[in-house]
């Protein structure tokens, strides 16, 4: 069907136009109506209002709808709630999620896990919702901002009477002592109120703070930048998030980089008793005051990948890392995350002794992390055939290492030397006395045949044991997308402030003989607009109550 979209003023409007683009006359309603007009986008046609939509137009139309946008927001909101019922997988590292939820919360927990709600925010449907909101942001904005921009930049001064009396703020009445300079004094009065005024002999358009109309679109642009930044964060190389232990006094290589970090000392400080409230003192509660790692960051400049040489390190940054105060080296950041004050073995210096006589063949230094492949002690050679930092026996009775932290270190040697078989003798050694008993070193060695040699490794005194007093658990972060996240949020805030703290106001006015017809429009804060119009009319000698300016259509 071909619609006649030509207005009586002669202007040819596009399909979907509600108010004539030139004179503002409502194109479809009856002339008798006084209902307030729907003034959204000044009644111009949006892109989505095409007469014969094709496939792409249909998708466009779907996402351009505010109704759809609100549904998307509400579904996302409700979906996000589900993720807070039980804790998310990402918030704990030490448990196996497939059993954790069932054990902790019973059947409900199991259902929760099986529905995938234990990782709500990474699930396909949640991400899809966010992407759809992004699409909605782009399309809603484009669909409206261009037509609105066009409509606002080519406004006509003189509007149709219908357009004026169907605004929400309306005044129609006779003007006494109407003289030729009535309009020019109206212009002066409105200019004083901050309006930009255009006029001809008997009509006037006053407008202020139009920029506030762009607020919502600026917000949307900011949100799109924000969402894109989050999307691109996932690309390889842009984002590193790793946690490592840094033992006190050691230079530790940071994996996948040419950087090394030395923990020069970790401190934890507690508030002294007199600074605590009485209740805490009584219950003996302690409150930490400070966690601090004195850190030095080194960059490797030469021999980095050569295992035979020590890497050449150059100090690049020194910082006392605290909570809320990370080390930052050109976007490479190190955060205080956790700590461990239980002393850990750094190295032991055991002696090789003959078990029955106690005769010692000599000592060697056995470092937990940097152990060598062979050690020469007297006439004997000890080859390190295996090393378990966190020793345990698995279900089949085989030795395994539960982690790389030296919680229960064990070393399996092959001892070769005089009076021993050619292939050597296997011997397992637990440096910690507690592990020796827990895992029964002697029993294992008996099975391995290590006792036949009559040799044993033993630490003879405390001076042969070296401890790491504490370890600091630091979080290594690189996040190259962060600047875009902040820029996006900054733009959002700019848009919010423009859109909410300023108000676009327009006042149209025309003199039909002795009658003044005034209509005024704003997007928000009608109260303020009515007050301003009432004051303006008072200036012009028309006494009218704010409340009476309000047009409620046929209700009154």
């Amino acid at each position, binding site marked *: 069907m071909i619609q006649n979209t030509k207005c009586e003023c002669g202007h040819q409007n596009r399909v979907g136009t509600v108010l004539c683009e030139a004179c503002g006359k409502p194109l479809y309603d009856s002339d008798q109506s006084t209902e307030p007009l*729907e003034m*959204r986008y000044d009644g111009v046609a949006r892109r989505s209002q095409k007469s014969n939509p094709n496939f792409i137009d249909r998708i466009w139309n779907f996402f351009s709808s*505010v*109704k759809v*946008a*609100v549904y998307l*927001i*509400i579904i*996302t*909101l409700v979906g*996000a709630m589900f*993720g*807070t019922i*039980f*804790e*998310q997988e*990402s*918030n704990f590292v030490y448990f196996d999620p497939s059993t954790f939820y069932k054990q902790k*919360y019973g059947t409900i*927990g199991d259902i929760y896990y099986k529905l995938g709600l234990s990782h*709500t*925010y990474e699930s396909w449907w949640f991400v899809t919702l966010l992407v759809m909101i992004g699409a909605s942001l782009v399309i809603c904005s484009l669909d409206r901002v261009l037509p609105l921009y066009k409509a606002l930049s080519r406004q006509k001064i003189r509007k149709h009477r219908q357009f004026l009396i169907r605004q929400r703020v309306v005044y129609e009445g006779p003007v006494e002592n109407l003289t030729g300079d009535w309009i020019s004094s109206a212009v002066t009065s409105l200019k004083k109120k901050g309006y930009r005024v255009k006029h001809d002999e008997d009509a006037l358009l006053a407008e202020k703070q139009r920029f506030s109309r762009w607020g919502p679109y600026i917000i949307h642009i900011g949100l799109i930048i924000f969402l894109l930044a989050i999307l691109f964060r996932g690309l390889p190389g842009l984002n590193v*998030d790793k946690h490592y232990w840094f033992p006190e006094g050691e230079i530790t290589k940071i994996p996948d980089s040419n950087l090394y970090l030395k923990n020069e000392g970790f401190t934890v400080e507690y508030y002294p008793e007199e600074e*605590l*409230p*009485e*209740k*805490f003192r009584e219950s003996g509660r302690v*409150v*930490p*005051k*400070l*966690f601090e790692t004195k850190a030095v960051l080194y960059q490797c400049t030469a021999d980095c990948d050569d295992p035979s040489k020590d890497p050449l390190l150059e100090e690049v940054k020194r910082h006392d890392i*605290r*909570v*809320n*105060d*990370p080390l930052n080296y050109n976007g490479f*950041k190190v*955060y205080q*995350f956790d700590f461990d004050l239980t002393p850990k073995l750094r190295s032991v210096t055991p002696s090789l002794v003959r078990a029955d006589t106690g005769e010692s063949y000599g000592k060697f230094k056995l470092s937990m992390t940097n152990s060598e492949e062979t050690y020469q002690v007297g006439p004997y050679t000890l080859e390190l055939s295996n090393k378990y930092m966190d020793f345990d026996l698995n279900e089949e009775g085989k030795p395994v290492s539960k982690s790389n932290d030296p*919680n229960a270190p064990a070393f399996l040697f092959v001892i070769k030397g005089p009076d021993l078989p050619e292939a050597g003798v296997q011997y397992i050694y637990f440096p910690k006395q507690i592990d020796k008993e827990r895992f029964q070193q002697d029993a294992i060695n008996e099975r391995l045949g290590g006792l036949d040699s009559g040799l044993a490794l033993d630490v003879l005194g405390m001076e042969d044991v070296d401890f790491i007093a504490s370890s600091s658990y630091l*979080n290594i*972060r690189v996040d190259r997308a*962060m600047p875009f*996240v902040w820029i996006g*949020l900054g733009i*959002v*805030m700019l848009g*919010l*402030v423009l859109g*909410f*703290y300023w108000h676009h106001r327009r006042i149209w006015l025309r003199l039909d003989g002795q009658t003044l017809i005034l209509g005024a429009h704003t*997007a*928000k*804060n*009608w*109260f303020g607009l009515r007050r301003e119009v009432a004051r303006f009319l008072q200036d012009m000698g028309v006494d009218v109550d704010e*409340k009476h300016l*309000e047009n409620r259509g046929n209700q009154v």
Partner: protein
Amino acid sequence: MNVLEISRLAFVIAFYLYCLSFIFYVVAVTGKTWRNRDPVRHERKWGAVSFVTSSLGLLSHFIYCGTRWAYSGHIPVSNMYEFMTFLSMMVMLAFTVIFLIYRKILIGMFALPVAIIIMAYAAVFPKDVQPLIPSLQSIWLYIHVTLAATGEAFFAIGFAAGLMYLLRTVEFDKQDKSSLRQKRWLEFTLYSIIIVLGFVISVYGFRAANYEAVFVQNTTVIDSEVQEDSTIERIVYNLPPIVAPDDSKPEYIDSFLGLKFPWFEAPSWMKGEQAGRQLNTVVWAVVTGTLLYFLLRLLLRKPLSRLIAPTLKSLDPDDLDEISYRSIAIGFPIFTLGALVFAMIWAQQAWGRFWGWDPKEVWALITWLFYSAYLHLRLSRGFQGRQSSWLAVIGFIVVMFTLIGVNLIIAGLHSYAGVD
């Protein structure tokens, strides 16, 4: 008298001034129809008296905040008592701003109870000045928390005005489906507010009676070395224990009306510090609130909404709608900046990630999404009046859940902002 004592005194003075000014606001609004009175003069006179009183209350509230800040060396927003007190202060500030824009004394009649109830709620929690743990030692504590509270305070005024709108427009005589539903939910909203009062009353009642019950709770932690590490914790109840802590034994229980306690145990999945004790408090709040509600109904012989509604007759519903919307529109950018943007900046600095889907973060986002849906519906879909007022009421419930509910039942990284 040291600084802390001045601060405590200022708190109490502020509270009583608010209560007094609430009475003045009620007189200012309802007194217009009293006999032998010129309504305009009455309103002007009593309106001025009420506003001066509530402003003095706010001044005293500022003194509380300033002196406590001076004493502790950090802004008083680091535990539940301090935060809730701060929130009520911001509600009063938001009220003052909105009042100065619209000059409607009636807002006072609704905003003051909101502030008073939040303040009374705050006073229930331990008032000790606590030193800051390392993660809170940041300038962002000041900015993030204060701005978030300010945004939420404007939402509270939006809630108050929205509720007023609903009470003003509800039609008690109509019996059609939508009016009935309207009446029912309004009454339920008022009942919920009474439950909060029930909470405050039961806590203060039993505190005055020095009630105490003690439970011993065994928590067993299995550490990596397959050694069980159990800690024994004593949990002190100041309300009769209807709900005992999960997996606990009573040490001693004071008697109350000869009843035998506890009646049941808290479910083990409840999180947060002392979940059992908190659940017990909630149960008491509901019990006391319900008793109080029915007592009021018995005395008044009509629904509470019916009692309040006539006082609003002189008011223009469109103005209420506009005020409700306007204060949410003022609060929204502040909330976005404080509760999301600055929260992200702080999280980035403290934890190395600007967003971690921690329950508190998620609920702040939910609040934000809710109010953005509200704004879209209002600005683009023409939701006005009743629909938008209900949204303003629900929105504030979401805010309160984010502030209190999350700490109570979900916990997470923000649990230290909690209760003990």
